[in-house]
């Protein structure tokens, strides 16, 4: 699977996040992919349901379990693409379901269970062999994921009776947080997925993972 495929799938997750934004939900979206096909899509529904646990991942998982009685045979060969790092709850759910891989856009500094707060995906009890651990690959369309979240909080602020200063009312498209990749995956895992050419992103010298590395023009 080339990098382009992952970018395309993450685009679909962004579409799902846009649905959440349109429905005045915190804009996080995801899709599950099995044998190169999208088998479920989810977008965050915590507001509409007044239930703090109806995250995008949970919505999509419910759909899969309802559709496929043999879901336990499917999920160990399925991948998740989600715009924001899964929270601790979803990270644990994915581990219990035996997901194969997780791709996410931006980090979840407050609740992240794939490296930001806890490393639910890779922790082992007493270093025992545990087949339920799974690798995570952050960074694809991270800026787009952050932009959606910013749009949501901007709307919130505008609706609030005491809107904050003008400065906060503008969408910041210049400054984006840099992912600290070593919190989420090893250098080897990174190179395996994104290729040697993007290593400068891993070590923090470059901004983001891009589909096409601009070819360097050799100096004459």
């Amino acid at each position, binding site marked *: 699977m080339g990098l382009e495929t992952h970018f395309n799938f993450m685009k679909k997750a962004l579409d799902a996040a846009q649905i959440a934004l349109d429905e005045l939900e915190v804009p996080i979206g995801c899709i599950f992919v099995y044998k190169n096909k999208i088998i479920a899509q989810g977008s965050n529904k915590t507001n509409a349901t007044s239930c*703090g646990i109806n995250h995008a991942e949970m919505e999509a998982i419910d759909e899969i379990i309802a559709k496929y009685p043999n*879901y336990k045979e499917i999920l160990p060969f399925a991948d998740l693409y989600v715009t924001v790092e899964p929270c601790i709850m979803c990270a644990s*759910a994915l581990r219990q379901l035996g997901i194969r891989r997780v791709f996410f856009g931006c980090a979840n500094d407050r609740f992240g269970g794939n490296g930001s707060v806890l490393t*639910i995906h890779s922790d082992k*009890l007493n270093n025992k062999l545990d087949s339920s651990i799974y690798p995570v690959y952050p960074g694809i369309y991270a800026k787009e994921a952050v932009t959606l979240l910013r749009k949501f909080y901007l709307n919130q602020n505008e609706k609030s009776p005491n809107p904050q200063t003008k400065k906060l009312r503008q969408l910041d498209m210049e400054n984006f947080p840099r992912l600290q990749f070593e919190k989420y995956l090893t250098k080897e895992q990174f190179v395996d997925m994104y290729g040697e050419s993007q290593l400068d992103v891993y070590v923090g010298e470059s901004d983001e993972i891009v589909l096409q590395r601009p070819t360097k023009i050799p100096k004459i």
Partner: protein
Amino acid sequence: MKESPHKIDFKDGIFDNCLQKLIKDGIGQENMNMQEVWVMEINPKDSSKVNGMLRELKNFHLLPFLKKFQKRTVESETGNSTVLDVLIGETSKLQSEEEVNALLKVDGKLRRVNVPSNYPPTKELCTEWSKIWPIVWKGNPIVQELNSIRLDIQEISENLRKISELSVSPPLKDELPIFTMVADRKGKVLTIKQDERKNHQLHHSTMLAIRDVAKLQQNDPKSYLLLDCVIYTTHEPCPMCCMALLHSRIERLVFLKDMTTGGLKFHEGYGYGIQTACTLNWKFDAYRWCGDEIPVGIVDDLAYA
């Protein structure tokens, strides 16, 4: 602060011999450790000069809870006089008297003294240890926190017995005997749910209970998630359920049986302590029942509750 009505074992966080609060950092160790430091005997009138000089000595990292100066009466043929003992710093940093003298530029007799190297957990021990070298007592935040907690032990044990009964003879025989009860701030039971993972691997009792409460409260504008609710559960919830409870803003959780895969413990299993893992947003208190045995149905210890 008023004294706690509970009998509290501060070391293990146990209330009235039956409820143990899971605590990340204990009250501190009751055994005194020692370290060797340089102490200089000076004339009291040199104290401010020495104080200024000590501030400039960056090689030393004095333990902050130890007082810097200690008065001492010295008997001599001409009568009693008062001297000041000054704590200079660890002998492990500067090993010879010459090195210390070169740094200090003050006259005084240097000697090596052993002083406490850990903060005392209680005021009583502070008084005791201060005989060796004076310690500044600033209270113990864990002790203060435990003292401020009020628990209705009777109500808690009754609720635990209710879910215990269900767990021992569960209505759904082919599902796991894991039960979760949600009570509101007034103690009213909102729901009790059994695990139902046979057809949905994530239908743990806690997840089902949270969704049930959301449904019940859907048309109640005054309610917000599980705010102020107390959760009673038979088996320590898995990380997914613990985080679901944190997302739901619960007040407190009480469980009966430890699980290897549980998400609440700080010092065993995964050691996640999820109830306080995201303190910027929310946290809740978690208690384990450790009183008279309240039985629960059998669940594989490695299962996720």
